């Protein structure tokens, strides 16, 4: 009796085991082929010189040394990238939150507004960036200006040169990114909805102003969402690629990001090893920043569970 049960059990388990591996194989294969292998081969490549045609050659830390000495492209791209993170992330987090607070009000037709502000997150990519570069075209003012400068012109404001000016080309890149800020509603709205109504009502009865209610009641309760947005925002802005690639400044050095630099080295100059080294430096920087973020978060992020 015992023996029989055991036999049945083990045959089922064998069968299940096999099925388990069959069912999970697409993900395992996908993970190996598209994540694990590229990950480790790029690490190995970062210590090699490889132009794709000739076999890779081991060069030790040469790629990294060369990077550190590359003032015109690498350091410049790093500076630009840090600018995008420092200016872009606070802006997009603040704007996203403000927008979501407005869109969290229960008024008539609110869903229509939500859809409208969410739409930019649906249409994305190169085509939209091309449109933006038309909109932001500087022009000389006499009918040749881009739409935005022309509109500014109606109010007597002389629009800046955007991508044609060293000062405005980076803000232009950030501005275009902000267009899709409505997408962050997906995180903000549930977080705001999660703030208990009783608490807000209690505060109101105590005579708290709107601002007080937000700052002392809502804000602490949504700090996890803020933390999430800041972290993802930093990661995203370190990997910024499409915007500076599609609508670069008149001099590309004004807008090039680390990812653009990486792309150029890999697919224009075919310096795969060098490009991999950039990827790894980028990875380490993002890693360090994320860890710092996590550590600091303990001081200001409030989880209901603790």
């Amino acid at each position, binding site marked *: 009796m015992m023996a029989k049960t055991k036999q049945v059990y083990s045959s089922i388990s064998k069968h299940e085991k096999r099925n388990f591996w069959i069912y999970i194989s697409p993900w395992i294969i996908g993970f190996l082929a598209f994540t694990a292998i590229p990950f480790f081969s790029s690490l190995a490549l970062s210590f090699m010189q490889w132009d794709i*045609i000739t076999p890779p050659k081991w060069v030790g830390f040469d790629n990294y040394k060369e990077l550190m000495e590359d003032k015109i492209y690498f350091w410049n791209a790093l500076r630009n990238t840090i600018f995008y993170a420092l200016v872009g992330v606070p802006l997009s987090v603040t704007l996203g939150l403000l927008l979501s607070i407005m869109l969290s009000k229960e008024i008539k037709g609110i869903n229509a507004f939500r859809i409208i502000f969410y739409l930019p997150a649906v249409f994305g990519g190169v085509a939209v960036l091309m449109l933006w570069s038309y909109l932001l075209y500087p022009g000389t003012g006499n009918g040749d200006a881009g739409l935005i400068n022309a509109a500014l012109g109606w109010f007597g404001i002389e629009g800046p040169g955007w991508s044609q000016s060293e000062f405005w080309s980076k803000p232009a890149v950030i501005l275009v990114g902000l267009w899709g800020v409505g997408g962050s509603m997906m995180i903000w709205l549930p977080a705001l909805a999660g703030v208990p109504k009783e608490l807000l009502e209690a505060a109101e009865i105590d005579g708290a102003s709107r601002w007080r209610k937000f700052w002392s009641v809502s804000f602490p309760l949504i700090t996890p969402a803020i933390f999430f947005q800041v972290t993802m925002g930093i990661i995203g802005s370190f990997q*910024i690629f499409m915007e500076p690639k599609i609508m670069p400044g008149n001099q590309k050095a004004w807008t090039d990001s680390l*990812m653009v630099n990486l792309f150029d080295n890999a697919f224009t100059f075919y310096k795969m090893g060098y490009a991999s080294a950039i990827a790894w430096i980028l990875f380490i920087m993002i890693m360090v920043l994320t860890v710092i973020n996590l550590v600091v978060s303990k001081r200001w992020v409030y989880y209901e569970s603790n």
Partner: protein
Amino acid sequence: MMKSFKKILTALTLSATLLAAGCSSDSAKTSGSSGSDGDKKETVSFTYWGGDFDKKRMEAIRTEFNKENPDIDVKLIQIPSDGYDQKLLTSMAGGSSYDVVQLAEAFNTYAGKGTLEDLTPYMEKDGVSKDDYFSAGMEAYTYDDKVMAMPMRLGAMIMLYNKDLFDKNGIPYPTDKWTWEDFHNAALKITNKKDGVFGVQGVGTWWANYMAYVESFGGSLMTEDHTKFNLDSPESIKGLQFMQDLIYKDKAAPLASDIPKGVDLWTSGKIGMLVDGPWHILSAIANIKDFKWEVAPIPTGEKFTTPLFSNAFAIPKGSEHKDAAWKVVKFWTGEVGQTILAKEGGEVPPLKSVANSDVYLKVHGDAVNLQALVTSVDGAFVPPITSKWGEINKLADTYLAPIFSENADVEKQLKDMKPQVDKMLTEAQQAK
């Protein structure tokens, strides 16, 4: 952003696996297909870049080829121009599955790595003479005195001019004898700020743009042996200064910000003289209805010369159908193939006899002076392409852009640029 990052990593691995596959499969390669033993049809795979226009041409030539060579099956593989270099590179790294490939600027890299078949013996065997082709066209694809690709289409920087604007200002039309001074005078007269009309367009950091002026003034980007930067020589500086003055001193050429986005100043009749590539000819025939225009060679400075554009067909060393592949290359770049190209009336056929025949010169009747293009190709220089071409172009863009868009001091920019380019050139030499 995450997506593009992933894409790049994916591409990295894909190429890594391709390389690995290429290394291991050499012996087991079955490549091509010779069909059943009964019919001895040999398949030649032939890859090229371009759009519908190119496809039509390639297929037309293949139809003629099949008539003469029923035993060879040419498999044409069209790749969009944008991804062509990457695609070819991965396939070459994998031991190349193609028998004939189209090449342009990447030629030196492939030839330098010893991945291309030397065509000289084939030419000697079949009596194909170098002298029948424009010398710049052959020179561009000769590496270590060996011809490693046969030119298919040639072009050169030319000058298109708006006849109406010349008439309006009472300036005689440009001739083959025109100097840069004539050009300068005409540019000043044509420029009319009130109407938004500029004398010249085509002053910029694109290699063919600045080299057109610099080489004609007797300068060059690098020394002839490709070892040293030469853009800071007095002649080169004169050329660059001439360009900068056209923009800032004479205000005869538009700044980037003077050109409204999405507006082509030339086709809208706001440009007197356009210094640019020959592709503008077909575009002008199709798009310009409001004014009369014509083609001329660019003006002469210290000498007459102009940058050459070209592309060619080569046979990778990995091909297993080399004899058949040579027949294909020979046919495409030979008289029949070239005549089909000539009838398009755009780029210049590299075969002199075809280029100088009425088939080409009279294809648009008397509407366009194609002789100007042939003259340009005949006197053209081959751009100094090294294995670092992409990187040097990026340096040029970085350092020359301030000259043309911010009125930066020419000599200072070149002083900063010199060590960077010299470093690249040394690396290119070492890589050889």
